[in-house]
């Protein structure tokens, strides 16, 4: 693999809240290659969305990026001006969201909002409209000429997500960040949307960072997978390898927690730690079945144990 399209290095993000400083990301390492679909999986609150928003530089006012780099085609996005970043959003990197219906402005027509994605980058007029219509056709929406005059509340969740996908891919971005795009949809619609994303990005050679808490979905769609726990990427690797032979104790626990018929359901002991006051050393150590003395003191680094196979755990040598 040559230099990846996106590389997140040692990203630390803190939120300043009334209760104190929430240490949301603690040295996230992540890479997405060209044309590759990478899933970022983890429980709610593990920092998946914060990672995505950091890449887009769309974090709220109370968030601070303490350290780290977000390299996109070799450029550190964190050092760009707001205007340079604006030009990247939507054109080079775009994003789709969990609740497609709330991601559309209720008082503006679908067509208006789609055209806006082009106007924001200087494409206007009849050509822009044609582009919108043809994109709507490509995402499988019938009768786009009528659809553009509709308001979001007239669409179903699945249609709205198709519109969002059309909007995100209008400028043919190099990277699509999909934040739980199917979690709010019915299972049947979910499968269609996944298939659509998969086929469109293959066609356009767009890379995808696919955020999900659903391991089944991750297995379905991705080439590689990165597992997050409490603000840290604990394991990264080819999707088959990770599912066949999980290395990190947390990944093992996660896979064992998938319900399967005829097998007892395994739960991971303990609770997700509060990030206001995260555990010392390895953030997973209070819940880890294989905890060692060193885990309480030293934070394990993400090391490559095999080519393309990374894990952050003291069980696997490293330091």
């Amino acid at each position: 693999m040559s230099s990846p399209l996106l590389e997140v290095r040692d990203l630390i993000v803190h939120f300043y809240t009334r209760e104190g400083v929430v240490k949301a990301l603690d040295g996230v390492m992540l890479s997405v290659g060209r044309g590759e679909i990478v899933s970022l999986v983890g429980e709610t609150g593990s920092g998946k969305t914060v990672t995505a928003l950091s890449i887009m530089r769309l974090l709220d006012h109370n968030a601070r990026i303490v350290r780290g780099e977000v390299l996109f085609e070799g450029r550190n996005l964190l050092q760009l001006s707001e205007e340079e970043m604006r030009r990247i959003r939507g054109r080079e990197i775009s994003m789709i969201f969990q609740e497609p219906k709330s991601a559309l402005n209720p008082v503006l027509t679908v067509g208006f909002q789609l055209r806006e994605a082009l106007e924001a980058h200087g494409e206007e007029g009849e050509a822009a409209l044609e582009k919108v219509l043809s994109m709507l056709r490509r995402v499988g929406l019938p009768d786009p000429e009528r659809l553009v005059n509709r308001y979001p509340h007239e669409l179903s969740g699945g249609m709205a997500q198709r519109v969002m996908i059309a909007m995100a891919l209008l400028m043919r971005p190099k990277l699509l960040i999909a934040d739980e795009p199917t979690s709010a949809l019915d299972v049947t619609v979910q499968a269609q949307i996944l298939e659509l994303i998969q086929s469109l990005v293959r066609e356009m050679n767009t890379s995808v960072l696919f955020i999900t808490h659903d391991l089944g979905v991750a297995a379905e769609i991705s080439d590689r997978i990165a597992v997050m726990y409490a603000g840290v990427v604990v394991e990264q690797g080819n999707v088959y390898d990770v599912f066949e032979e999980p290395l990190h104790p947390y990944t093992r626990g996660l896979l064992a927690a998938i319900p399967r018929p005829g097998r007892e359901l395994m739960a991971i002991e303990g609770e997700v730690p509060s990030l206001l006051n995260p555990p010392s050393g390895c953030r997973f150590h209070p819940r880890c079945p294989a905890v060692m003395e060193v885990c309480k003191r030293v934070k394990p680094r993400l090391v490559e144990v095999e080519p393309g196979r990374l894990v952050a755990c003291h069980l696997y040598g490293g330091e």
Partner: protein
Amino acid sequence: MGDRMEGARRTSIRGSLLMARLVLSSPTGFAGAVIVAGLLILSLIGPVLAPYDPYKQDMSERLMPPSWEHPFGTDQLGRDILSRVLYGCRISLSIALLVVAISATIGLLLGLVSGYFGGLVDEALMRVTDLFFAFPRLILAMAVAAALGPSIINTMLAIATVSWPVYARLVRACVLQVRNETYIEAARAIGAGHVRILFRHVLPMVVHVVLVQATLDLGSIILLAAGLSFIGLGAPPPTPEWGLMVSEGRLYIRSQWWVSTFPGLAIMISALGFNMLGDALRDAFDVRLGR
């Protein structure tokens, strides 16, 4: 593209028609709309309807009670009160509309910026509005009007100065809600800039609040302008301004009640009309926005 745009326009016309039907279907909304429409018509054609010149004095006809010749009677200088009330309609309404236009625009812009960007700008601006809210509106307007001197323009400036903070506050509160909506995040994610987001995505969501407040405000501004004129800080004599007319008639209130009463009624009815319309408008927006 033409007929496609036409389609979008039709939808928004349909929305406006729906609003109008909702407002008119409530009794108060209907009454308010009739009064406001009446006031608007009178302010346009009042001078044509007025039987006399509102400035023409006739000392032989002074303080005449209402009669067929002078339906509202005459004042202490023998001027026809009906004519003066009719002319006054245009004055009061233009003061109110202009002041609302100015203060709502200022308040809207400041509220948008304050709520959307937050931080220091927001903090500073909100403390300024606090300052304004610390005083009763009339007292503050009196101070400004007294400093500027009595004239209709100064009355408007004084009222506008004290009226914008309400709009800024309202709009800011509304923007704070809208700002965290996913569609704002989504708009930023497609590369929309702040100006585009503010005017295309945030503004349409707050404009109804301003509209309702403005309608309600029209009534209180008419009152405020009349109040300033009443105490001699507004329109100077011999302007046929309602507040001034009430003030001029107060010496005769026991014996010649009509001098103050008719302009007073005009003030009351117009304030009432705008309030009823504003209330109905708010209810209609609540229905339409599903609240």
